[in-house]
């Protein structure tokens, strides 16, 4: 009964004063209500940003130009990929206030033909020439943002550090299961007829009575986004716009590549979960 007669003003609880003037009732058991903080919701943009494994600075954009043979000082011969970093400039910064997350949008190369009005205006705002490829990199907080119009060169990366390279792989067309999923195929003899490269059984019969979703089958292969993790940087030449990376990068020569610091090594979540 007394709880109903309490009036909450701010954080403090004041007992009601009866207006008839007859009695002033203040219970000695009155409990001041403790206002607890609203719990952080797991499924919110804010919590998701804290959980995410993000880098402190953005990556850069480039174009795969081919592979070469690289020699270390000890005489070890390595296969290396050459990435051209040409006219990689910052176009826009995205912030929590405007977009819900921190990111740096970059543009690469120059496009002077068939440019859409949107791209022209966007590049005008940043004060850079119209860009051929545009992509963004998420960063952990505002300290990773770079003002628009700044050119980022290849010596952004240090020799010896590890990078992740994301690009679109070569298209292989409609491929069978042996090529697409490394299946073994069927036998060459023992009665196998015109099914030497087939998948074989698809599953059980009446139970479940259907092919389970995600069954590996023949289909279109390639032209998929592929990230090659933890490639070592062998050589950088900022003035010439050349970055040499150990190993392979997915995609044909001339394909667009996103290169960032290795997430598994340098990336951290803000809440420390990853």
């Amino acid at each position: 009964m007394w709880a109903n007669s309490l009036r909450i003003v701010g954080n403090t609880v004041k007992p009601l004063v009866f207006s008839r003037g007859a009695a002033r009732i203040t219970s000695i058991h009155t409990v001041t209500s403790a206002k607890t903080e609203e719990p952080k919701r797991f499924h919110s943009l804010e919590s998701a940003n804290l959980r995410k494994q993000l880098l402190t600075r953005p990556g850069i954009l480039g174009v795969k130009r081919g592979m070469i043979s690289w020699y270390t000082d000890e005489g070890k011969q390595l296969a290396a990929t050459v990435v051209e970093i040409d006219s990689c400039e910052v176009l826009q910064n995205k912030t929590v206030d405007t977009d819900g997350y921190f990111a740096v949008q970059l543009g690469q190369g120059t496009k002077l033909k068939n440019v859409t009005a949107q791209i022209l205006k966007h590049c005008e705002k940043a004060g850079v020439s119209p860009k051929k490829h545009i992509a963004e990199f998420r960063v952990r907080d505002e300290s990773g943002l770079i003002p628009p119009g700044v050119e980022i060169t290849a010596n952004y990366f240090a020799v010896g550090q590890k990078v992740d390279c994301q690009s679109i792989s070569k298209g292989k067309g409609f491929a069978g299961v042996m090529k697409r999923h490394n299946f073994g195929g069927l036998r060459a003899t023992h009665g196998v007829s015109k099914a030497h490269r087939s998948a074989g059984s698809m599953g059980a019969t009446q139970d479940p009575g259907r092919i389970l979703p995600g069954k590996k089958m023949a289909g279109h292969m390639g032209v998929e986004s592929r990230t090659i993790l933890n490639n070592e940087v062998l050589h950088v030449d900022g003035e010439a716009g050349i970055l040499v990376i150990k190993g392979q990068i997915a995609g044909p020569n001339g394909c667009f590549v996103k290169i960032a610091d290795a997430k598994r090594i340098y990336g951290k979540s803000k809440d420390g979960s990853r």
Partner: protein
Amino acid sequence: MLGFARVGLSPVRSPILQSIRTFIPYRKGAIPTVYAPLPAKRNGELPIPYLHKKMYETLDPSGQRRELINKANPECLRAGDVIKVTYVDRTSVLGQIIAIRRSNTDSNILIRNKITRLGCEVRIPIFNPRIKNIEVVQRPKRYLARSKHYYIRNTRLDVGDLEATLRKK
């Protein structure tokens, strides 16, 4: 570590009177300002030939190794020559050239020898910084046909024990 070439905004760059092809017909005076592209890097040279040139400056400053496999050079190595490759750690390999693969800094030579009557082959990347010297020990009087001598393996044309034959001389 950070490589910001040019910190600053548009004032560094002047707008240009460059015609832009777009699908959108602009009203007169409504075309956005188009900024000039950054100057071409490497004077417009393609990245991979440029990088090979830079690599030769450290891997082969005198150009001697390149001359060894340059077909325009009359003294150039050929399949059939016997060469001795000396490494920086003073070890060496002797063998007869079976094939030369010409591919910029990845160029290599396949040499063959018989060690205890067993055919042994080594592929030698000629621009490897661990190699100190490549010298011609012997040239044949008459070269065999073809530039790749893979066909001599285990035939009567096969190489003998080169160390022994050279010692006899």
